[in-house]
């Protein structure tokens, strides 16, 4: 019994033990995650209605660039991305540095209050925003009371205002979430650095830009990538708040993918191809952000 064991060297043995521990998790990830991804890619090379699919090569990928609705959805996604993400992250950063102040009273209360929107369900908050901005909703009632408007303005009925409302909703929902990341990042910055800055006569603004922002860079990078990813996959707000309207002005890519698989005559190949475009976009944007933001080498 011992004779056979001796043939394996100690290093090899350790290696094998390591692999043995890795195998179960790896297998699960491969089966549960990678296999479906590969299958989805194969599916994206086919086309057809429902179950009757035939090979189409990369036709689906060419087709989506001729699809006016999908292009509109892509444009909408980038409008949200370019406007909403910077506003949200800057707001979260400001809130986090304010709440990090040692002398602030009721810190826990403010932190909870700002984080709380994150705990609400996506669908219910979207519906609440929809009724807030309805023609006879709270916002219009207030605006009429204070004499800004004579009759209710149909916020969700006009392209620009509907987009602004989605952006406001997103900021309300996700600022607190990002703030928590910044707060935890700020805890890691030694307070003595700030004391030193104070002694050197740095203004709060200077402290923020010269100390807080650079030291938080890894966290900022993380939140940027996560927000980009989340915005490109935006679904609930488009479906529940505006239903993509008016005239597809607020529809997102994921909403359109849902439509092409479940609402319309199902073309799963095309839907899978569009999902892959989102994956590619997220990957490319994350790569660019890493290149720009991560200067560790």
């Amino acid at each position, binding site marked *: 019994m011992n004779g056979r064991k001796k043939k394996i060297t100690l290093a090899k043995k350790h290696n094998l033990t390591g692999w043995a521990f890795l195998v179960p998790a790896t297998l699960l990830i491969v089966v549960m995650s990678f296999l479906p991804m590969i299958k989805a890619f194969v599916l994206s090379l086919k086309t057809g209605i429902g179950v009757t699919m035939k090979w189409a090569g990369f036709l689906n990928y060419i087709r989506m660039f001729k699809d006016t609705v999908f292009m509109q959805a892509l444009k909408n996604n980038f409008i949200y991305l370019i406007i909403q993400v910077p506003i949200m992250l800057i707001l979260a950063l400001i809130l986090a540095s304010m709440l990090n102040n040692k002398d602030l009273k009721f810190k826990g209360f403010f932190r909870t209050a700002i984080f709380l929107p994150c705990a609400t369900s996506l669908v219910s908050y979207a519906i609440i925003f929809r009724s807030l901005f309805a023609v*006879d909703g709270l916002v219009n009632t207030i605006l009429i009371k204070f004499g800004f408007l004579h009759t209710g303005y149909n916020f969700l009925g006009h392209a620009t205002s509907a987009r602004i409302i989605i952006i406001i909703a997103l900021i309300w929902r996700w600022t607190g979430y990002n703030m928590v990341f910044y707060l935890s990042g700020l805890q890691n910055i030694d307070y003595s650095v700030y004391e030193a800055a104070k002694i050197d006569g740095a203004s709060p603004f200077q402290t923020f830009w010269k100390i807080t922002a650079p030291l938080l860079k890894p966290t900022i990078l993380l939140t940027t990538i996560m927000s980009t990813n989340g915005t490109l996959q935006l679904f609930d707000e488009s479906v529940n708040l505006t239903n993509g309207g008016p005239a597809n002005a607020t529809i997102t890519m994921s909403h359109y993918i849902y439509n092409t698989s479940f609402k319309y*005559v199902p073309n799963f190949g095309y839907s899978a191809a569009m999902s892959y475009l989102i994956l590619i976009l997220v990957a490319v944007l994350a790569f660019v952000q890493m290149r720009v933001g991560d200067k560790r080498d």
Partner: protein
Amino acid sequence: MKKKLLCAVLTVAMVSSMLAGCGSTNKTESTDTSKSTEAEGSSADNNTLTVWCWDPAFNMNAMEKAEAIYQKENPDFKLNIVETPWEDVQTKLTTAATSGQLDTLPDILLMQDNAFQKNVISYPDAFTDLTGSAVDYTQFAEGKTGFSTVDGKNYGVPFDNGAVIACYRTDILEQAGYSIDDFTDITFSDYLEKGKVVLEKTGKPLLSCIAGESDVIVMMLQSAGGSFFDESGKANIVNNDILKEVMTTYQKMVEAGVLVEVNDWDQYIATINNGTVASAVNGCWIMASVQGAQDQAGKWDITNMPRLDSAATATNYANQGGSSWAVTSNCKNVDLATDFLSKTFAGSTELYDQILETGAVATYLPAGDSDAYGKTNDFFSGKPVYSKIVEYAGKIPACGTGVYFYEARDAVATAITNIIGGSDINTELQTAEDTVNFTMGQ
């Protein structure tokens, strides 16, 4: 060495427990599936049928009543009715059909009329052709059976009625000097002119609808037998004179303030129940919502919808919503299923009498002759509204929704939003047709 041995033993224990875990999961899974086949899938035993439908107060109740009626002749017969919301029916059907696991489907399921053709064409293997079965299709209005007919084959048994009715607030009409008769058998231009008077004298618009949903447009279009598609199934939007008339009429009504657009269903119902608008034009199932405002009892009356002015085929009747029963290909006992449906939903006036009070107005034409349908409804000015609806239902012109109905509907909704915003009607219709053609050209 001891430590190593312990490690090895623990590792073996962990791995084997995991394997055992997997193994037992498999076992429980298999028992689960066998259980769920009982609960969800079609029924194995010879006298039980499994049904999916979604509304306990409405279509589930109807199925229970149908079960009781059929049991009089067949005491052993049993139904297993599973509450499944429509969205879930659609998702489960999609999943079952695309994965080839058709044995997870029930024997009978209820399907929205608008989605019927799409599903039959996308998943031809999932449904049973009922043409030539015991179901007598001549007893239903053509406009209704058309929804569940694909290539001349019938795949569904019609259930609830979606005949369009126009409900008017008679007290508001009176203030403007009108009666319900002034709104019966009228054209849309009459409707618009009278609507302007009502708006001027009472400050209330006539009609409300949801922006971005083309329900009203589809009703207007179908009232003249129009469709978004021609007979060969090609998109017919730009050169569709009926549709063009519908779009301009709709636009005029919005511009005159006679038609107000709201953003969602709740707001739409609110405009009716709060007395913001003087009328509601929709499928007759809207009656349940109209009756939600009990303080308005006796102030409502029902008549037919306005018709288009210039279209030669224009009528005052259309269909909106409604659903039909489909028999899946997973049904082991097709004879029993068709016999059951033909003796209840396609053959029993007694059934339709029993479910009338829940708002389920029959599409089965003989049901309209029964006494229950002659009853009056005090909410609607004490008139015999049900017999009226059955009469309307018989006059609905047949019109194909086509497979790509939802695509066309959304494209036209986009067009009308832009037209009201000031775009040119021909360009917008061209865009809509291009969009529909694009989705069809896959």
